[in-house]
Structures are given as C-alpha cells and as structure tokens.
C-alpha cells in the first residue's frame, strides 16, 4: 500500500437543484484496499460514486482519481483514465440489446487491440470468473435472473482488469450463499490483481467479509472512517446502532 491515495476527495459539495447531498466531504482511498461505504438510505452513497466517476458534476470541491482531476483532463486523457476503472451499477445496467458475452466484450472492443477470437475467449473466461455458467454468455440480460445480471455486470466491470473497481450494492437482492460467493470472489480478485475496491453496500456480512476500511456517510459528509473495530468506538448514534443492532451483532457472532 503506497502512501499516495488513489482517490482524494476534498471539500466536496454536490447538489440537485437546491437539495444539497454532500457538503464539506473529505475522503481518501488508499491503493489496494477495499473500502466499504455505508450510511442510511438516501445519504448519497451512490451520488458519491457517480461524482467520482464523473457522472455527476460536483458543485464545489475537488476529486482526484489516480492523482488527476477529472474535469481538467482533455477527452483523450480522460478515456485513458476511464479504462483504468470498472463500474458495476446497482441494477447491472447491462446493454439489453447485446448478449452477456457481447456486453463483456464492449469495453475490450472500445479500448484495446484484442482480436475477435481472443476477445471472445477472454469474455467467456470473465463470465465464469464472475460465477456464471458459460452458456449464460449467449443469453440476453432480460433472460437472466437478478443475481445473474449482477454477476454479468461484474464480468463487464472486470473486462479490462481495472485497477479500481466501483461496486454499487453488489450483494443486494442475492441469496446469502450467492452473496458470500460474491464476497469471496471480490476478495480473491483484490488479492491476486491488487485491486482497489470502492464498495457501496448495506450488507453487514459483506463488510465483515471483504472490507479493509469502512467510511460512514451521513449528515452530508463522512461521519467516520476506519476499520470495523475502530468504528465500534465511534460515538455517533447511527454508527452505534448500525454495529450494535441485531443485524450488526449477528454478523460478528456477538
């Protein structure tokens, strides 16, 4: 883990019209860690993700990814930067007119010199790596169940072996066994590829199983950042309730 953070957010403010989502938000994400983002519903976890990947223009403040400020890059540099991260959206956001395999091949086609044969082989490999049966590659997203769609979306996010992976609620709506498999997969990939993972989640089990650090969002900024043990000591009602509540306790076995 190098000292230079992979994402550095300073004094971020985002707003929809007059509704302010974040204000004075600071956050550093270190290279090679899995950071979990939690917080009450509607506190702007997904908006933060959208702001980092450039889908939502911040109203004030700065976001640096890989040491670069997104809005200051010219389109070419931005393209190069964008291929270094992969994003998995909450409901998959697969292209519905393409098969799963073609979905995974889209970023490869757009950003690399891979030939069609190798591209197909790699896509099939990613699909299995994400835990799908190989024949799922020929299906269309509308033929897949919700869990399978998430896996397909993960396969697409991993298509270019990104250094930085954004996952928005990867385990929401999955059965516990599949969710646990997902956690193991993310952890394994992180180890062997040295991934940095930005993980938005509500799933306490996922937090325990995968995350190195956790950032709690609330009241328009980051309430606390740290390991689970550090967060337990944070004197904030929501944080206390989160880890001390029945679900939080169940996950640790206390």
């Amino acid at each position: 883990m190098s000292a230079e953070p992979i994402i550095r957010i300073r004094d971020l403010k985002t707003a929809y019209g007059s509704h302010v989502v974040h204000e004075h938000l600071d956050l550093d994400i270190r290279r090679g860690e899995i950071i979990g983002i939690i917080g009450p519903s509607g506190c702007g976890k997904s908006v933060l993700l959208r702001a980092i990947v450039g889908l939502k223009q911040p109203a004030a403040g700065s976001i640096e990814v890989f040491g670069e400020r997104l809005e200051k890059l010219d389109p070419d540099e931005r393209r190069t930067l964008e291929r270094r991260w992969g994003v998995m959206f909450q409901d998959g956001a697969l292209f519905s007119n393409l098969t799963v395999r073609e979905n995974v091949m889209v970023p490869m086609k757009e950003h690399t010199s891979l030939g069609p044969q190798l591209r197909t082989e790699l896509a099939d490999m990613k699909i299995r790596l994400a835990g799908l049966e190989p024949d799922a590659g020929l299906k269309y997203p509308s033929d897949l169940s919700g869990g399978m769609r998430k896996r397909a979306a993960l396969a697409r996010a991993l298509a270019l072996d990104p250094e930085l992976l954004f996952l928005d609620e990867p385990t929401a709506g999955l059965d516990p066994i599949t969710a646990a498999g997902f956690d193991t997969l993310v952890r394994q990939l992180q180890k062997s590829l040295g991934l940095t993972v930005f993980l938005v989640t509500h799933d306490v089990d996922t937090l325990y199983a995968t995350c190195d650090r956790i950032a709690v969002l609330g009241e328009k900024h980051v309430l606390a950042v740290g390991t689970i043990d550090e967060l337990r000591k944070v004197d904030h009602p929501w944080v206390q309730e989160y880890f001390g509540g029945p679900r939080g306790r169940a996950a640790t076995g206390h």
Partner: protein
Amino acid sequence: MADTFPPEFALEDSDEFSTLRLAGDWTVAHVQDVDEALRQLAPAKPMRIDVSGLGRIDTAGAFVIDRTLRAAASGAGSDAVIVGEHATAGRLIAQIHAVSEPVPAPPAHEGGVYALLERTGKGFMGILAESVATLAFLGETLITCVRLLSQPWKLRWTSIVAVMEEAGLDALPIIAFLSFFVGMVVAFIGATTLSDFDLEIYTVELIGYSELREFGVVLTGIVLAGRTNSSFTAQIGTMKMRQEIDAMKTLGLKPMEVIVAPRVIAMVVMTPVLAFVATLAGIAGGIMVGWLALDINPAVFIERLRNSVPIDQFWVGMSKAPVFGLVCVLIACRQGLNVGGSVQSLGRATTTSVVQALFSIIAIDALFAVFYMELGI
C-alpha cells in the same frame, strides 16, 4: 501508469523439456501481440513455462498462459508446469485455470433452400397469428369499452381528459397547419390545370370534394399515426419493461381498463374533432389561393361551395374519422403491451406500431372509397 514493456516469449529446447521463457508485461492492453504466435506453438516435448522474467500480469495475460499450458498438455500428452518465481503469476494462473475451460460453440444455423422455406412458412404463420391477435385485441377492447360505457362512473375521467389534451388538443396546431398547406397546394394544382380551359372557378368544387371527403381526415390519420402511435407505444412499452403492468395486475387493476380504454375513448372522440379542424383549415388554404391567385372573392368561394358541394361529402369524411382513431390507438396499445424486456423490442414495437397504423389508414380509406362508391355517394 508506469512504463510498459511489450510481452515477449522465447522457446528453448533441452533434452527433456521445452522451456518457454516469458518477459515483458502480459496485460490486456498488449497481450494480443503474442496471441497468434502462442497459438502456433507446438512443442514436442513436455513444456515448462518460466515466469521468472515476467513483468506485470493480469487476468488476460494469465488466461493466455493458461491456454498455452492446456494446449501443451493435450499435445505432448503430459502435464505442463510453471517454473520460476513471480509475485502473483502462479496464484493468478491457478485462479484463472479454474474458469478457463474452452466453451463449446453453439450449433450453427442451417442455410440453404430448406431454411428459406422454413423462414417463409414461419413468416406467413406469423402474419396470420398477428392478424388473429389484433382482432382478438379489438374484441377485448370493444367489450371492455362497452362495459365501461354502460357504467360511466367506473370510467377514468382524469386519464381520458389527459389523453384528450395530450394526443388531441396538442396535435391541433400541427394538423391545422399541414392541412392548410395541403389545401393551398391542391388549389394551385387545380388552378393551373383548369385555367387551360378557363374553368378556374371549378377549383372550388375540387377543394370542396377533396378536402371534405379525403384530405382532411386522411391527413389527420397520418399525423396521428406518426405522433400518437409512437408516443402511446413507447409509454406503454416502457411501463411493460419496468414491470408496471405486472404491478397493476397484482393490485387488481386491469390494464385493459386502466391503460387501453381511456386512450381508445379519448381518441375516438378527439379524432373527428381534429379531422373537422383539418378540413376547415384545408378549405381555408383553398380560399386563400383562390383569393390571391385566381381573384375568386372568399364570399363567392363560400357561396359556390355551399351550392355545388353536397353536405353528404362532409359526412362521408367525418364517418371515417372515429374508425381511423380507433385503429391507430388499438395498434399503439397492442404493440406497447407486446414489448418484451429489451430496449430493442421497444424500438421494434414502436416502429411496427407506426408502420401498421399508416398502412391500416391508407388501406381502410381505400375500403371506404369502394364502399361509398357502391352506395353511390
């Protein structure tokens, strides 16, 4: 990003082994460079892959190495192994090995005469099924509408009025505008031709018959087919895609009553109104040309129109309007409800909806023409 080195490999044969030495970065950006050469590789002896000189590696690189291992293992009949030290290669290749079995290709489609016949047959049966389904939908809609009209308190007046505004009132300016210009064009053509015989005054009859009987109502139908059909199909199709239709059913709401009936009723009421305005606008266009280009005073024009064009012509035109409206809205709703899960099917349904509506309007208009001719009107 740090400097990258293109991937390279070298094959060294010793007495017992072929050793493949890897160098450079084996990442997704560059692995294509060695892909072809690696596929050609066919060592006769058991193979070892030396990863000690390897730079960076990701899953794409690991996959290519693993594929080479598999090919070597099946070719030489003995297991290939990885030798040499590398921070991540061994673990990553092992991880990829678990998921990299080649996927069998799906059976290819048959070509030739047989397939052509099969497709023709399927297409024909498709048209039959489509016609039956449209008629069934017409029947279901009519039953629903009649039942609702006999119990007017069950009608959804809010949505009926909303559709009337959105698809009727809002379409008025464009329809009036287009019809006005078509009326002008018809008058000009008539005037140029008729002036050869010094019969310019018959432009009035020309405008009267064509506008009252055909142009007003057909133009309305065509604008509705383009404007209303696309919007209805897209609306309903999106509701279908987002499972709103399913949600309605589970809440005990009938899509027929909630979605289809209000639109049908609104359009059957509004189309004659639109057609009426279109006819007036068309005649106004004719009057304008008559006045400016032919020196026919508007008062004379209107007087002649009243005397020489029977009112029957107006009713012939108007009688078609509700039918056109009904046909358009039926096709729009049916196509909307036909949408499946993908964006592509939404696009296809919208196209089909507009094309079918245009086709039906022209075809039905021709049928009406034959029908009224037989009646002698």
